C-alpha cells in the first residue's frame, strides 16, 4: 500500500467512526428526550387520542383544558400540593445548606476540645441511609405532633451530615489569609464565618442548595409517610395518588406530570452550572 493510499484509508476509517459516533449520539439523544416529548404530547391530547393504536406525532386539536381540569379536581388538590412542594423546597434548600455550612465551618476552623468526637458523631450518622430510618423518624415526628404538617415533612430533612463533611473539606482549603484581615479588624469566630467565610462560599452554597432543592422537590417516601391528609400532600404524592387510583384519567396524569416536572427542569437549566459542580463535588469527596 502506498503512503497516500494508507493515508486515505486512515481518513476513511476516521470518517466512518465519526459517522458512527454521530449516529450513536443522535439515537441516545432521541432516547433520552422521548419521555419528555411523550409527556407533553399526552398532556395535550384527549384520552382516546392517547390510547389510539394509530400513532400521531402531535394532537390535531390541543386540549389545554387538561390543565384546568387538573387544578379544578377537588379530590386531587393539585394546586395545594404544588404550593406545599414549593414551600417545602424553598425552605429546605437554603436552610439545610446554611446549617451544613455553619457546622462545616466550625468543624474545620474552630479548635475546641472534643471537636473530633462531635465530628465523629456527625459522620457516624452518614452510615445510616436516610430512607431506611423512616420508621424511627416517624416515631419521633409523630410523637412531636408533626403528622400531616408541613414542618413534619421539612424538619427531619434539614440535617445533612454529608453536606457538613463537604463544607468542612471546603473550609479546610479556604485560604487563611482572607480571614486574617477580618481577624485584624477584630472579628470573632462567629463574625469571621458570617462576614468572610459565608460570603465567600457562594458557589458551594449554590451547588449544594440546588441539589437539596431537587431532592426535596422529588422526595417521595417521607412525604408519603408523614402527609396522609390531602392538605399535607406534596406534588409527588398527589401525582402518585392519581396514578394508583382506580379510574385512570390519562390526559390528566400527563398534565400532572408536566406541572411537577416543568418547574424543576426550568430551575435545572438555570442553575445547571451549579448542579453539575455540586454533583461532581458530592460524588467525589464522599
Amino acid at each position: 500500500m502506498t503512503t497516500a493510499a494508507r493515508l486515505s484509508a486512515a481518513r476513511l476509517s476516521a470518517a466512518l467512526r465519526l459517522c458512527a459516533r454521530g449516529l450513536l449520539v443522535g439515537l441516545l439523544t432521541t432516547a433520552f428526550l422521548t419521555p419528555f416529548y411523550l409527556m407533553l404530547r399526552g398532556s395535550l391530547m384527549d384520552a382516546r387520542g392517547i390510547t389510539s393504536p394509530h400513532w400521531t406525532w402531535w394532537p390535531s386539536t390541543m386540549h389545554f383544558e387538561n390543565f384546568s381540569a387538573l387544578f379544578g379536581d377537588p379530590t386531587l388538590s393539585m394546586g395545594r400540593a404544588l404550593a406545599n412542594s414549593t414551600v417545602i423546597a424553598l425552605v429546605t434548600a437554603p436552610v439545610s445548606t446554611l446549617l451544613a455550612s455553619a457546622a462545616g465551618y466550625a468543624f474545620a476552623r474552630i479548635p475546641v476540645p472534643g471537636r473530633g468526637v462531635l465530628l465523629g458523631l456527625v459522620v457516624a450518622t452518614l452510615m445510616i441511609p436516610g430512607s431506611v430510618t423512616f420508621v424511627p423518624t416517624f416515631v419521633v415526628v409523630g410523637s412531636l405532633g408533626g403528622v400531616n404538617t408541613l414542618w413534619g415533612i421539612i424538619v427531619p430533612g434539614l440535617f445533612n451530615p454529608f453536606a457538613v463533611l463537604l463544607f468542612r473539606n471546603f473550609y479546610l482549603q479556604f485560604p487563611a489569609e482572607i480571614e486574617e484581615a477580618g481577624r485584624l479588624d477584630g472579628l470573632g469566630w462567629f463574625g469571621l464565618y458570617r462576614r468572610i467565610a459565608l460570603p465567600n462560599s457562594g458557589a458551594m452554597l449554590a451547588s449544594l442548595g440546588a441539589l437539596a432543592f431537587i431532592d426535596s422537590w422529588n422526595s417521595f417516601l417521607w412525604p408519603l409517610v408523614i402527609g396522609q391528609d390531602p392538605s399535607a400532600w406534596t406534588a409527588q404524592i398527589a401525582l402518585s395518588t392519581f396514578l394508583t387510583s382506580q379510574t385512570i384519567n390519562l390526559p390528566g396524569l400527563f398534565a400532572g406530570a408536566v406541572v411537577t416536572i416543568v418547574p424543576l427542569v426550568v430551575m435545572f437549566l438555570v442553575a445547571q452550572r451549579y448542579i453539575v459542580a455540586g454533583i461532581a463535588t458530592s460524588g467525589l469527596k464522599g
Partner: protein
Amino acid sequence: MLPAPETTGPSGRPGPSRRSVAGAARAGGLRAGRRGAGRPSSGRRSGPGAGRPRAGRSAWIAFALLTAPMLIGLGVFKYVAIGWSFLLSLSDARGTIAPSRWVGLDNYRALLSDGAFRGSLTQILLFTAFIVPVTFAASLGLALLVHRIRRGRAALRTVFLIPAAVSYVAASLLWKMCLFNGLPSGIANTLGGWFGMDPVPWLQTTSPPLYWIVLVTLRLWLQVGFYMVLFLAGLQGIPKDLYEAAALDGATGLRLLRRITLPMLRNTSVAVLMLLFIAAFQAFDEFYNLFNSGLSGTGSAPVQTPLGYLYNTAMGSQDYGLGSAGAFVLTALIVGVTLIQGRFTGFGRSEG
C-alpha cells in the same frame, strides 16, 4: 467593624502555625478581649491566664452557635430516633409508638421467618445485581462519549443529565402509561409492532419477567446522567501527557482505556459503585408507583422491595415493632455491604 484596642497585643505574640490550636486560641482570646472591653465581668482577659494557648470562651460560644442546630437536629432525628426505634423493635408495638410490652427478639424472629420479607430481600439483591453493573457501564460509556466530543459537549451533557431533575413518581408514570403500557399505543409495543411483535403487557408479564426491563430502563434514564457527571469530572482530572506518552508507545483505543483511563478513574469508580449500591438497596418509589394498583389492575405487586415491606408494615398494619426491626435489619445489610465493599476497594483509605 472597628478594630479593638487589644488587637495588637495578642496577635503580635509569636505563635506556631496559623491553624494550630495556639493560633486559634489567639484569635479566640482576641474576641474575648474585644467583648470584654464593654463588660465589667471580663476582668479575666487582663489576668495572668488570659493569653494561654487554649480555646477561649468565645471560641466555645461561636462553635456552639454554629454547630448546635446541626448537632441537635442529628441528635433528635438520628440518635434519639434510632434509640427509640431499637426499644420498639424489642417490644410489641402494634398501633402505638410507645414501647409497651417487652418481647425480646420476637420481632426479628417473625421478620426473618416471614416469606414476604425474605422475598423482598431476594428481589432487592437481584435488582442490585442488575442495576449496579448496568448503570456503571452505561454512565462510564456515556462519559467517554461526551468527553470525546468537542463541539456541543455541554448540550449533550445537559441532554443526559436532565432526567436527573425528574422524580421517580413522574418517571414511573411515563414508563407505566406511555412507554411500557400494555396497549398497542405504548411506545414499546408500537416499536415492537413495526417488527411484527404482538402487544405485550410489560408490567404484568412475570415469565419471562419483562417488568425487569421497565424497572431497569427507568432507573437508567433517571440516574445515568448523574454518574456520567462524576465520571466526566474524573476524566478531566487525567493528565493529557499520560495519553501522549502511551500513544508514543503505540497504544491505541481499548488499550488506552484499559491501561490508563480505567486505572486513573479508580477513585471515581469506587465512589460510583458505592453510591449505586446504596441507591439500589433503598429502591422504593418506582416499585410503589409501578406496581400498586392503577392500570396494572392486580393490586398486588409481583415485586416488593424491603422498604416497600417496611412501609406496609409500619404505615399499613401500624406494627411499629416489626417495622423497627426491619429498619435495623436493612440498615445492618447496607452498612455491612458498604463496609465490605470499602474493604475490598480500599475506599476511604485516603481519608484522613
